[in-house]
C-alpha cells in the first residue's frame, strides 16, 4: 500500500531536501515509522515516548487524525499524510 508522507519545509534537511516520502503502511503510525526508518533524526523531532509531540499535527487527506483514531488511523493506497507544526493561527 503506497502512502505519500509530506514533510514540512523546515525538516527537509533530514530527508535530503525531499518534500515527499513514499512509504508502505496500513496505519498512520506504520507510515510514519517507515519514514523514520528511512531518515535518521526525524523520529525524535516528531515523536516523544512513542506519541506525537504536542505541537505536531498530522492529517490524512486533510483530516486531522485526532478526529479519527490517532496514530491507529487507517490509511489507504494513494493517501497523502501531511505533517505540520501546530503553532499557527489565532
Amino acid at each position: 500500500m503506497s502512502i505519500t508522507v509530506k514533510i514540512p519545509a523546515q525538516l527537509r534537511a533530514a530527508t535530503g531536501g525531499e518534500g515527499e516520502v513514499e512509504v508502505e503502511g496500513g496505519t498512520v503510525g506504520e507510515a510514519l515509522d517507515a519514514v523514520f526508518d528511512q531518515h535518521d533524526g526525524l523520529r525524535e523531532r516528531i515523536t516523544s515516548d512513542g506519541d506525537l509531540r504536542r505541537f505536531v499535527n498530522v492529517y490524512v487527506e486533510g483530516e486531522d487524525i485526532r478526529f479519527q483514531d490517532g496514530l491507529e488511523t487507517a490509511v489507504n493506497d494513494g493517501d497523502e499524510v501531511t505533517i505540520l507544526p501546530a503553532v499557527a493561527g489565532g
Partner: protein
Amino acid sequence: MWEEIPPGTSAHSQAEVFSLAVESLNCKECGASYELGAAFFCESCFGPLEVRYDHSGLDAVELKRKIQAGSRGIWRYADFLPFAEGERPGDPLEPGMTPLVKADRLAERLGLGEVWVKNDAANPTHSFKDRVVAVAVAKAKELGFETVACASTGNLANAVAAHAAAAGLDSYVFVPSDLEEQKLLATGVYGTKLVGIRGNYDDVNRLCTELAAERPWAFVNVNLRAYYAEGSKTLAYETIEQLGWTLPDRIVGPIASGSMFTKLGRGISEWLEIGLVEGELPIFCGAQAEGCSPVATAFADGSDVCKPQKPDTIAKSLAIGDPADGPYALDLARSTAGAIESVDDDEIRAGIRLLAETTGIFTETAGGVTVGVLAKLAEQGAIDPGERVVVYITGEGLKTLDAVRDSFQMHEIDPTLESFEREFAPAQVA
C-alpha cells in the same frame, strides 16, 4: 514620533535607559534559541517560538517617563516590542490607547464591586487585531517581505487588509467562506486578495501553514506569529497605565487560539519584573463559546491537552477548534487560581445586550462571550465584590449584526401626535 531623552535629564546614562534589547527567538517548550527571522516553530521539538528580550539594567523611573512622553498608541511601548533600537517604525494606522471605561451599571447588575471595560473595538479596524497586525506588518517590512497574508476568522482579515493597504504591501487574506458578510465587506474594500475557503477556520489555518512554506510571504499569524503575538502585550500595558500604574485583581478575556490571553499575562509579568508596576499577577479568567470550547473543556476536565473540536457557534471570531496556545492559556488560568468558562449562543446574545444596555458599548459575539462568562462567574459567586475586574472587549458589534437581529422591537407609527400617544400612552396621574 519617538521622543529621545535629552542628555543630562537623568542621573542614568542613555545606555542604561535604552538597554532593553531584542535578543532572539526561543522555543517555549525546549528553550532552543533561533535568530530573529521569519521562523515560528522549533525545528527540534515543534514548540512555538517566542521573542526573548534582555531586561537587565533597566531603570523603571526613566522607562516610565519615556513611555509617557511617547506616541498616543501602541508605539509608546516600542521598548517592549520586537524591534531593534533605532528601528521603531511610524505607523499611519497606529492602534491603541483605546478607552478603559468604568462600568458601574454593569457591575451593579451583576452584583460586583468594580468593573472596567477595555473597549478595544475603538481601534482603526474595530478590533484588537490592529495591535498584532501593526507589529507584524512593521516586522514584515523590516524583513523585506512585499506580501503579507493571514488565516483569519474575520477581524484579522480586516486588519491585515487595511494595514497592508496603508503600508503599500500586497496582501492575501484567507477566511472560511461562510464568514459574516460584514467582515467580508470590511476586508474586501481595502483591495486585498480575499480568499474564501470551503471549510472551517482550522482548515484555513492548515492551508496557510502549508502555503507559508511554499510562498515568499509574511503570514502574520504563521511565520511571523512570534512577533505578531507580541502586539497583544500592549493591551496589558495600556490597562496598567489607564489604572494609574496599578493592576486589576482579575482579568476576564476571550480565548480563541489563546495567544492574546497569554500575552496579557506576559505583558504584566514583564512590567512586574522590571518594576513598572507593583503587586502580583491578576486572576486570569478565559471565555469561550460552548460551541467551540476546547480550552474550557480541558480546564473542566483537569487536562493539559486541548482536544480539538469542530466549531458550531455564532461566535465565529472565537471559532478555533485547535487552539495553538491552549496549553499555555490553561497554565495561566490555573497558576493564578482563575478559570476558563464557556457560554452558549443565547448567553452570548444576552451578553451583547447586557453590555450595550449598561455601558453603551455594542460588541460583537466575542464580546458577548466575554460578558456572558463574566456574568456566569458573578452568578457562581466566584468574584469577590471587593475585586477590581477588567473585562476585555475585543471587537465591534456592527461586524456581527445577525447576533442581535430580531432581539428588539421597533415601534412603527404614523407621523401624528395621536399615533405616538396611542403607542406610548402617558402614565396615569393618580
